[in-house]
């Protein structure tokens, strides 16, 4: 039975549709990310769950109870904000204790809970520090401890890492996931950072212009984008305009080059399709004068950028396509700029979308 349910949430700001009918359900203890570009409606959805916004229509149900018209302070929801949400006049411990004081927990029990939470987020040494004496990452840890202290039914995180340094971001997102798993709390995480969403979530909902484009596990979202937007938004993707050439064996015609693609099997020959290909799926061969074997796209390396373990190559194909390929950096010297290459990829590695 789902624990947190959103039923057909709609929200209009003037003529702008922030949410055009969003439905979702989360199992208890699930970690779901709402991933999308700014202005896509993900934050609106989160604020409706928290109760800071009222939907025009639709319902928010938590544990079987309709919460849509409950005030935010009656929802038992823990929330971590983008930044600077700690009360500046209170120490870390007082911040964490705030929600417990509201709930009238007795002093000793409260103190124990505060120490427990600050220990979980690794800040036992900073209990008496004020927010301005804490780094950005530490502040967000306190904010997390504060949100969790009240034993909320649902934890909401609104881009909690966006104001932090890259290194801290990675550390803290792992930390958030660890704490979430440890406490088994149902969590909705809003972010525009796909790496963040894919690395910590059980499931990811890609949100675009007020609706959910695709909902699935990180592997599904990355490996099998179901819409053009998701394909473009998640990771780097080669998009090749092509036409179905052989609907039985599975092959497409990319500007005159016939390339095997399993995914077009069963589509009518001559249909225009978009072939999606991850840069890491591409295998390159250098071409030194000899004619290429069929089934490869011939082109020339136009740019090289070193990304660490892999090197990213830009390839201009003779048939007019532009391709991006990742090759292991250890072998990248073979593919210097203006080197002629043949691009090949496994027939089962490409995805196909209707144009």
């Amino acid at each position, binding site marked *: 039975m789902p624990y947190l349910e959103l039923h057909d949430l709609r929200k209009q700001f003037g003529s702008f549709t922030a949410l055009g009918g969003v439905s979702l359900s989360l199992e208890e203890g699930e970690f779901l990310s709402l991933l999308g570009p700014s202005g896509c409606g993900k934050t609106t959805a989160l604020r409706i769950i928290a109760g800071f916004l009222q939907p025009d229509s639709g319902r928010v149900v938590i544990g079987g109870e309709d919460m849509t018209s409950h005030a935010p*302070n009656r929802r038992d929801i823990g929330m971590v904000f983008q930044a600077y*949400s700690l009360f500046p*006049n209170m120490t870390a411990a007082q911040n964490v204790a705030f*929600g417990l004081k509201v709930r009238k927990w007795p002093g000793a029990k409260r103190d124990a809970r505060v120490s427990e939470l600050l220990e979980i987020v690794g800040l036992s040494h900073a209990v008496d520090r004020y927010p301005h004496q804490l780094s950005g990452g530490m502040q967000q840890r306190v904010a997390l401890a504060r949100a969790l202290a009240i034993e909320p039914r649902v934890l909401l995180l609104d881009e909690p890492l966006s104001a932090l340094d890259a290194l801290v971001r990675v550390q803290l997102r792992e930390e958030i996931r660890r704490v979430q798993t440890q406490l088994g709390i149902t969590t909705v995480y809003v972010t525009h950072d796909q790496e963040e969403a894919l690395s910590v979530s059980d499931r990811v909902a890609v949100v675009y212009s007020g609706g959910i484009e695709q909902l699935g596990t990180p592997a599904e979202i990355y490996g099998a984008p179901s819409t053009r937007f998701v394909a473009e938004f998640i990771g780097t993707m080669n998009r090749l305009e092509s036409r179905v050439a052989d609907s039985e064996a599975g092959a497409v015609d990319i500007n005159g080059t016939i390339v095997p693609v399993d995914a077009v099997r069963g589509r009518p020959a001559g249909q225009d399709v978009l072939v999606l290909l991850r840069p890491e799926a591409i295998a390159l061969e250098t071409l030194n004068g000899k004619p290429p074997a069929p089934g490869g796209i011939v082109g020339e390396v136009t740019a090289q950028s070193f990304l660490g373990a892999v090197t990213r190559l830009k390839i201009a194909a003779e048939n007019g396509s532009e391709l991006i390929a990742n090759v292991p950096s250890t072998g990248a010297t073979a593919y210097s700029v203006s080197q002629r290459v043949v691009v090949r990829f496994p027939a089962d590695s490409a995805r196909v979308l209707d144009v």
Partner: protein
Amino acid sequence: MPISGIVVLTIGALYFLVPVASTVKFSLEQGHAGFGFQAYRQILDDPQFRHTLWFSVQLALETTVVTMALMVPTVYWVHLRLPKIRPVVEAITILPFVVPPIVLVVGLFDFFKSFSPDWLLQDFVFSSKFLVAAYVVLSLPFVYRALDAGIRAVDIQTLTEAAESLGASRTRTLFRVILPNLREAVLAACLLTFVIVLGEFTIASIALYQTFPVYITTIGSAQAYPAAALTVISVGLTFVAAAVFLVLGRMGLRKRRQPVLGAAMTGMAGAASTNPGGA
């Protein structure tokens, strides 16, 4: 500090200090009998001095309490829920600058008299509470601006939502989360209100109340040396009041990032000098 800075500072200091120094000197003169504290003794022995001062302090305290109770929630709410009408509120709070005090006091009288039942006339319109009402209006521009400056320095939206998500009621959020973070701004607003009321002459005089400024004027028109002594005492009292508020503000600073009081006070200084009701 560069030479030009020292020069400017010196000129500024002289501009403020010379009048005070000459007043102090004048207040210590005893005609042909040389220098002494006779004028001060005369003032301090005058029961009117204590009565009017105490009356003014009471008025100042009452006005401060009423103004804060009215304005802190208003400014908070406007910022939180009605940011679009902020320019309107701002314009309204400037009105007391535009309306001359005499118009204000006559207008208020006529307004309240037109609909007040007898008991309200006795207990409010014809009592010193009427002065408080007028002073609340008079201090609006300063109080609004001081609070506005303070509230802008804090992300009240996020703090409010954080408090609410933790289960806090509106009242608890206001008193436990918002107010402590507006401490400097609130103190600045209190100080300004207090000082405005302590120095207000026109309204009190028209409404026939013997406040401290009215007393100063009465003495000033009759007795030269005691008037100077009184002025010195009054300047001293203002300084003490300002110092008390500053110390109160400083006490909270250890915890906070920036001292807002200083900024708010600087912003107010210019405005205060144009106070139409000030004596």
